[in-house]
């Protein structure tokens, strides 16, 4: 009885966890979603359990939770391109191990590609690979076609292999091409995480299909013939296959929230809740709803007021402090911090920190407006240098003519016109030594005392492990570019040290020792991070960093990095090298014996259409050599969705569960959801399993990320906000 109760509790908690995660991920929901397809229990467009051939709108992210008979599937689906879809799925499966041990958790990845889009005469045709890189429980491939008639009736038919070829199957027709297709090699779960290409489209095949009828804009009915016999679940007697016919409905509670109900295999009923959001449709529109700035202060014409244009003021030293104060106040009201300036009779260069605006363009526009109130009419050229708030690194000097601003503000094509007239150069090429530094900006310090939460999501033995406690954080900047920061924590409650998964690898336990650190967190205060970093510009197009201290929970030491961003190139190059020692488990000031020199050479490339690649080649924390590849789709509004994997000279067996390091990264800019400017962002990292192979040093500031806001491609991407 106790066991049964435990299972029920686990199921309830799983549902709660999943709903919570879905809620966290999608909040706030975007206002409108058009042509979002209803999804099946695997989170991809489909009927009930079977897929159809449709895709979601480009960039759509759907989160679906399917729940039936003590099983749950939480799927995160991203429309990578209009024809390519990727899925990450976290499933809770009853008696996963087959040993009657209750719920087990499984992660799986899918890819779907639409070969043909639908036309008036031609159905859509899609090829899908389900669970191609996980432990293989849901492994299956299919080719499916769908056609919609009169915008109401959708017919779907397909042929499937693997899981989709397990009921009503016949000899694989591909066997006519090659005998190798006739049999499907045995599934070897092993360490999982490897592409099982030797199984794809092999073994028995089966047909599946169905009909979907759109009764209204909100309500749709589905009936399907399923070719999945649920062999895995039936072997564990957790479900019975009574019928291949599944029936159900889906109802749009809101344009972006759909609830589906269905009967499955004639044995059970289930529910599917789907949230959709699209990075392209922010809740407050592209403009956001920032407070209106003051309009540009227009200067009188020289003919009307020649005295207003005099340059004599520069000869009176007493004027300069007044103008300095004007600039400081005006920029401050614009949400910017004046750090330094150079002023003469006709031009000014100002350097300011930007703690407010996600796009440098908006910061530039607001600074320019502010300066028109602060400076005499004769100051025509405004050279504006926005500094990164965290590192104080300069990037670009954007020089605008005040007369251009006055002329173009209300011009219909003003956004492009002012860009064409702007002069953009590397701020490091300027003469920094002629700048007057503002007093009172440095030393700068800040501190905070409050709660912290540390969560580990979607592990294979527990979907949601978390700690909570109190954190005292501090930051001290004695001068521009030199930052000391750290946190002291006291854990109050949590279960992150409950994990049972730690099977240390034969490698140095650079990550699998994490639980030993978490165990010690129960003993008293600990210091997850305490370090100093110095950021500098060694030359034009070059950026540098030197770091020392306790970088992360497990490692501390010395680290340095250099980055080269050549002008008008799609690529950048960087290199970092660190000497680090393993910290004592108590996360205080001591070190253990293990030390290593780790570092990478990194290449960054900006593809067309918002895709970015990063390749890091080098030595990892456990002494293994290899590379990490990251592909990210980035939107001009700041959203990023990407994935990465690492391959090192560690074998899959040595690596352990997952076979190699890989993960998904989603970054949501705060201003996207709030509508109000913010440099903040929410990062969601779904890492399969943190193992010792392919482990990189964390905690130090990476220059590419820290400097990208102040680069010309980023300036261009955000330029639409110049007048905002």
């Amino acid at each position, binding site marked *: 009885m106790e066991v049964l*109760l435990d299972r029920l*509790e686990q199921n309830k908690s799983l549902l709660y966890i999943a709903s919570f995660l879905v809620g966290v991920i999608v909040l706030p929901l975007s206002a409108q979603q058009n042509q979002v397809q209803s999804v099946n229990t695997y989170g991809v467009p489909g009927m009930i359990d079977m897929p159809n051939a449709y895709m979601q709108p480009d960039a759509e992210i759907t989160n679906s939770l399917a729940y039936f008979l003590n099983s749950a599937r939480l799927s995160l689906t991203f429309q990578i391109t209009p024809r390519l879809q990727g899925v990450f799925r976290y499933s809770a499966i009853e008696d996963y191990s087959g040993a009657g041990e209750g719920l087990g958790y499984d992660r799986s990845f899918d890819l779907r590609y639409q070969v043909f889009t639908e036309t008036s005469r031609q159905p859509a045709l899609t090829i899908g690979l389900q669970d191609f890189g996980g432990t293989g429980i849901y492994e299956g491939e299919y080719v499916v076609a769908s056609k919609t008639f009169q915008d109401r009736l959708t017919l779907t038919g397909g042929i499937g292999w693997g899981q989709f070829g397990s009921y009503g199957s016949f000899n694989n027709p591909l066997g006519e091409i090659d005998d190798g297709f006739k049999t499907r090699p045995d599934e070897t779960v092993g360490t999982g995480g490897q592409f099982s290409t030797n199984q794809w489209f092999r073994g028995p095949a089966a047909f599946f299909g169905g009909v979907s009828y759109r009764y209204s804009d909100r309500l749709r009915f589905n009936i399907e013939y399923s070719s999945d016999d649920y062999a895995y679940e039936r072997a564990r007697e957790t479900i019975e296959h009574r019928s291949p016919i599944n029936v159900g409905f889906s109802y749009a509670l809101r344009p972006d929230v759909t609830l589906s109900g269905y009967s499955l295999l004639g044995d059970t009923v289930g529910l599917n809740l789907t949230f959709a959001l699209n990075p392209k449709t922010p809740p407050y529109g592209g403009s956001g709803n920032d407070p*209106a700035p003051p309009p540009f202060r227009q200067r009188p014409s020289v003919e009307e007021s020649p005295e207003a244009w005099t340059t004599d003021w520069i000869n009176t030293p007493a004027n300069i402090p007044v103008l300095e104060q004007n600039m400081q106040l005006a920029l401050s009201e614009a949400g910017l911090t004046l750090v330094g300036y150079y002023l003469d009779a006709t031009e000014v260069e100002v350097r300011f920190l930007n703690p407010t605006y996600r796009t440098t363009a908006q910061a530039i526009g607001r600074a320019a407006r502010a300066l028109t109130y602060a400076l005499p009419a004769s100051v025509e050229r405004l050279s504006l240098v926005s500094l990164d708030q965290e590192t104080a690194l300069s990037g670009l000097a954007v020089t605008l003519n005040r007369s251009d601003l006055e002329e173009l503000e209300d011009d219909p094509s003003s956004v492009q016109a002012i860009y064409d007239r702007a002069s953009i150069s590397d701020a490091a090429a300027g003469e920094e030594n002629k700048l007057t530094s503002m007093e009172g900006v440095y030393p700068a310090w800040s501190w905070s005392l409050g709660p912290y939460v540390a969560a580990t999501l979607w592990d294979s033995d527990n979907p949601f492990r978390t700690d909570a406690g109190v954190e005292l954080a501090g930051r001290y900047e004695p001068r521009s570019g030199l930052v000391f920061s750290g946190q002291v924590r006291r854990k109050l409650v949590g279960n992150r040290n409950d994990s049972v998964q730690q099977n240390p690898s034969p490698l140095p336990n650079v990550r699998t020792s994490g639980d030993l650190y978490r165990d010690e967190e129960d003993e008293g205060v600990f210091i997850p991070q305490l370090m100093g970093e110095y950021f500098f510009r060694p030359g034009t197009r070059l950026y540098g960093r030197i770091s020392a201290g306790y970088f992360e929970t497990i490692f501390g030491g010395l680290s340095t990095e250099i980055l080269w961003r050549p002008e008008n190139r799609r690529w950048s190059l960087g290199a970092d090298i660190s000497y680090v020692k393993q910290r004592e488990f108590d996360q205080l000031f001591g070190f253990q014996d293990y030390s290593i020199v780790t570092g990478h050479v990194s290449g960054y490339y900006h593809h067309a259409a918002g895709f970015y690649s990063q390749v890091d080649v080098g030595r990892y924390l456990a002494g293994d050599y290899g590379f990490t590849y990251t592909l990210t789709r980035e939107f001009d509004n700041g959203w990023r969705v990407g994935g990465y994997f690492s391959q090192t000279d560690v074998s899959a067996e040595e690596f352990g569960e997952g076979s190699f390091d890989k993960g998904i990264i989603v970054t949501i800019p705060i201003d996207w959801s709030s509508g109000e400017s913010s440099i903040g962002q929410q990062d969601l990292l779904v890492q399969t399993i943190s193992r010792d192979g392919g482990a990189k040093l964390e905690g130090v500031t990476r220059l590419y990320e820290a400097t990208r806001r102040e680069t010309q491609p980023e300036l261009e991407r955000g330029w639409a906000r110049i007048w905002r």
Partner: protein
Amino acid sequence: MAVKITRLRLFLIVLVTIFVTGCERLTISNANGHLGAEHVETQTPFNAFLDLRGNNAASGDTQQTALDPRSLITREAVEAVDVPLYFVEVPGRGFEMFRQVSAHKEHSYWRALNGTQGFTLTEHGLVVRTIGLGFDLENADQTPTVAVLKSRQPQRGYVKTYRKINGLGRIEAQEFVCDFSRSGVETLILAQRSYTTRIFTESCKSETEMFDNRYWLQGNVLRASEQWISTEIGIIRLERLTD
């Protein structure tokens, strides 16, 4: 014991939910003053209008019983301030009073008395840009409408371009084909003063949407107007209170 553990987990989740949603509020922090202070304006001449907003919420869903905020705007209060004023209604958001803060060549700049929104208008009162509404108008090329309002003659098939920042953060232009026609005569009462106006309608459509702008002209002065801003905002109404 097993049940206790799972309950603890549920408790933790609830706790985490509270923390995640409330961390920022619970955190006490201090910095040595980088951020600018709140800008506080003392708008003594405008005080007569500041209380009007209390009726704002009532102006929407219970129109039968709610007091029209226009009835609270006196001519005396309008004339007591030395800058031009607009009464602006935004669908679903009630109304706001706007004052002119500056003008340059053929454009004027307006800011909300109580809010954070701003407009740029042509000298005739046509909306060129909005800021702070969300789903704002980045720029409307009002040149064709300025021309037809001057001529006051019916006209068909002229093109107007509206620009917005789309969800991706890029400028997106929408072109509309518009017809301009007369729609009658109406006496408007604005801040206790009546104006006899002629109404003109500008009907515009693109491939995906359509709207009607309406203009109430007293001589050459645009006394009131209803103007399309964006798909999401819809049509706002502007009434010029100052002669």
